[in-house]
């Protein structure tokens, strides 16, 4: 079996698993405790925060540990909305965000907030002219992702930041960075981002850990209240082992990003040219997308059929994003990109990891061609 679903979750680095186990065994004390063991745990937690901050070129005090990006996105969007509702009740996002952003905005709408969903072009890139027009005096927050989780489309965040801040210097910019970190360079100060969320399990870190960058000076209304952990921004006993293990994964991912980018770009070339040669397949990502996501549709075929057919041949790929793949609706992201229902209902995603080699990719393209050939009669019969 070869696992091709790294955009859903990644296998943790071996070192990360070892660190997690060692710290869990040795430093089980509560870092808020006053005794010596608590102090030791607090030291580790502090060090983990410094390492995570360094990986993003930000200050340790700007790092909040979370349970992952779903929490980070909720905390950023709803926390900012509740904190700054005196500035206005308007939020801007795109139609192609991850459900953890999209549904937050939907929820705020039911509470009386106005949300502008910016359109995207055929490649999934946000319409900057529409953004410029949408930012108003009462816009509290703009939330735009770095890399789309289905198609790999990369948003032009430097321009987004410039436009948002030029139109309204008080409007906050939140970036869901989940699919970008470790794959592409991250430049929070250039983007002028105020909030940035990550999940550790997307960069070979432990499940159940994440980071929310909260720029100095920005306040969030805490969604989880209780103890004063994380400077009162997020209550709950600290997951010291998780924080340490995540910081390791984060440091390694940042260090390996440039070489990984080159390697994945090479593999992606192979996939794109291979898929273009297979009759019936429609590519939804391109050379301009992030290098680790290759997305295509096989119109007329239920994507589950394709997933299981590839599985038979030892290849694990995915339909849509894992968070919404059990639903049999067409992909909202693809519909937003102007694809028709057929294309939007038959998407398949291949996502790459550090362990993949050229031979693996060539093998998958080969298998894909074969499976498509076998399935074509099915489509023709149903069509």
């Amino acid at each position, binding site marked *: 079996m070869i696992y091709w679903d790294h955009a859903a979750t990644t296998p943790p680095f071996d070192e990360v698993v070892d*660190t997690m186990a*060692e*710290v869990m065994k040795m430093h089980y004390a509560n870092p808020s405790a*006053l005794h*010596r063991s608590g*102090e*030791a745990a*607090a*030291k*580790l937690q502090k*060090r*983990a925060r410094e*390492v995570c901050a360094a990986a993003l070129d930000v*200050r340790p*005090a700007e790092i909040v540990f979370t349970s992952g990006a779903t929490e980070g996105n909720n905390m950023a969007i709803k926390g900012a909305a509740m904190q700054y509702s005196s500035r206005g009740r308007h939020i801007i996002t795109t139609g192609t965000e991850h459900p953890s952003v999209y549904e937050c905005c939907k929820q705020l709408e039911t509470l009386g907030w106005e949300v502008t969903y910016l359109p995207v072009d055929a490649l999934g890139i946000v319409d900057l002219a529409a953004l410029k027009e949408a930012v108003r005096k009462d816009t509290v927050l703009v939330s735009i992702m770095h890399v789309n989780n289905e198609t790999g489309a990369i948003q032009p965040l430097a321009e987004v930041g410039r436009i948002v801040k*030029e139109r309204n210097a008080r409007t906050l910019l939140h970036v869901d960075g989940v699919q970008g970190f470790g794959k592409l360079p991250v430049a929070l100060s250039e983007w002028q981002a105020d909030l940035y969320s990550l999940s550790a399990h997307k960069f070979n870190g432990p499940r159940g850990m994440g980071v929310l960058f909260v720029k100095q000076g920005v306040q969030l209304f805490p969604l989880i209240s209780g103890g004063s952990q994380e400077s009162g921004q997020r209550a709950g006993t600290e997951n010291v082992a998780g924080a*340490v*293990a995540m*910081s*390791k994964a984060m*440091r390694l991912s940042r260090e390996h990003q440039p070489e990984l980018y080159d390697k994945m770009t090479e593999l992606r070339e192979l996939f794109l040219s291979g898929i273009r040669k297979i009759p019936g397949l429609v590519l939804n990502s391109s050379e301009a997308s992030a290098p680790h996501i290759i997305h295509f549709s096989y119109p007329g075929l239920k994507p589950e059929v394709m997933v299981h057919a590839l599985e038979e041949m030892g290849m694990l790929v995915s339909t849509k994003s894992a968070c919404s793949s059990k639903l049999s609706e067409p992909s909202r992201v693809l519909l937003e990109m102007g694809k028709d229902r057929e294309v939007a209902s038959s998407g398949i995603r291949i996502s790459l990891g550090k362990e993949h080699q050229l031979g693996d990719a060539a093998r998958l393209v080969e298998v894909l061609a074969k499976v498509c050939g076998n399935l074509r009669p099915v489509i023709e019969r149903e069509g």
Partner: protein
Amino acid sequence: MTYDMLLLRFGEFTLKGKNRSRFEKSVLSHIRRVLKPFPNAVIIKEYGRMYVELNGESPEALIQVLKKVFGLVSISPVRVCPSELDRIIETAVHMVGQRNLADQVTFKVHARRVWKQFPHSSQEMNHLVGSPLLRTYPQLKVQVKQPDMELRVEIRENGTYVYYEVIPGAGGYPLGTNGKAMLLLSGGIDSPVAGWSAMRRGLEIECVHFYSFPYTSQLAKEKVMELTRLLSGYTGRIKLHLVPFTDVQTSFVSIGQDNLMITFMRRAMLRIASALAEREGALAIVTGDSLGQVASQTLPSMNVIGRATELPLLRPLVMMDKNDIINIAKDIGTYETSILPYEDCCTLFVPKSPTTNPNLKIVEKVEASLTDLPGLIEAAIQNTETVIIRPDSKIGELEAKSEGQVINEDWF
């Protein structure tokens, strides 16, 4: 925009007659030290200002370290071009274009012709450079008095300097030009700010911290070391004296005068600090006292406590509001460390209602009755541990060596 030079301006000390060269020497050696990590930067001295040629070094990184040099009032990143009209205009247009221009920006050009052979006078140059800027950037509007942006053009024989940005520096007096003092460093918000203010005024400081193992934790001690490290970013290195205060402190518990506890403690601290000052050749004690902030900082308390030393007590924050102090703490980078929640020895054994108006006679009488006190104070001084802390000191590691490593580097 790539810059070629930084222009550094100096403050009031340039007015100080005979001492001027001493001040200049001190500031120059401070600048040399902070620029050590940037081998290509070249310092050029001129009357009343200095230039740093970047030669490819990052201007942002240099400005970051230069902002910590006391005596330096402001910094301007400069672009150098040949002293030819076309090139000057081209440089000015390019430079202004790099700035994020808002809807409307008022500006003026201030040209200075140092090289008198240049064919256009300063007045003419203001127009010659200003007009193309107005044509290129419609957002610009000329305003001679208090413009948003003042573009300076200095025409010299070997090149013309163009700049508009003026970045404020730390100001004050060059490092150590006004002698040495001991700083009582508690770990709170105020004392590091007091220390910074003293250093900014040209004082060299040595820090004195009182700790009460086992009642205060290792983390509290490390926090003070970290604060010292942050302050050392302004000076290169700082001596920190760590005074074991437990025995002195607990000796006061038995007196039964709980409301005077803090008064006794503070007086004992001043006595210890004075002895250390004498040993180290310091001529004053700096504290973070701010009038009325807590019981020991009321005027009657300051009076009674202050009499425990004959050295001048310098209180840079005495008339400042807490919010202003907090803002400085944030600016100088000590705030986030200061608010870490560890007990220090002053918050231990705090009585329910400490006096705001101690009686000097009673205090002196009680102290005279404590026959053990002089010995305990002497022992505290003898057992004081002195460490030298530098900006790159690894605080956790200094301590960890003694009690087994907590942080396993392999984990990160």
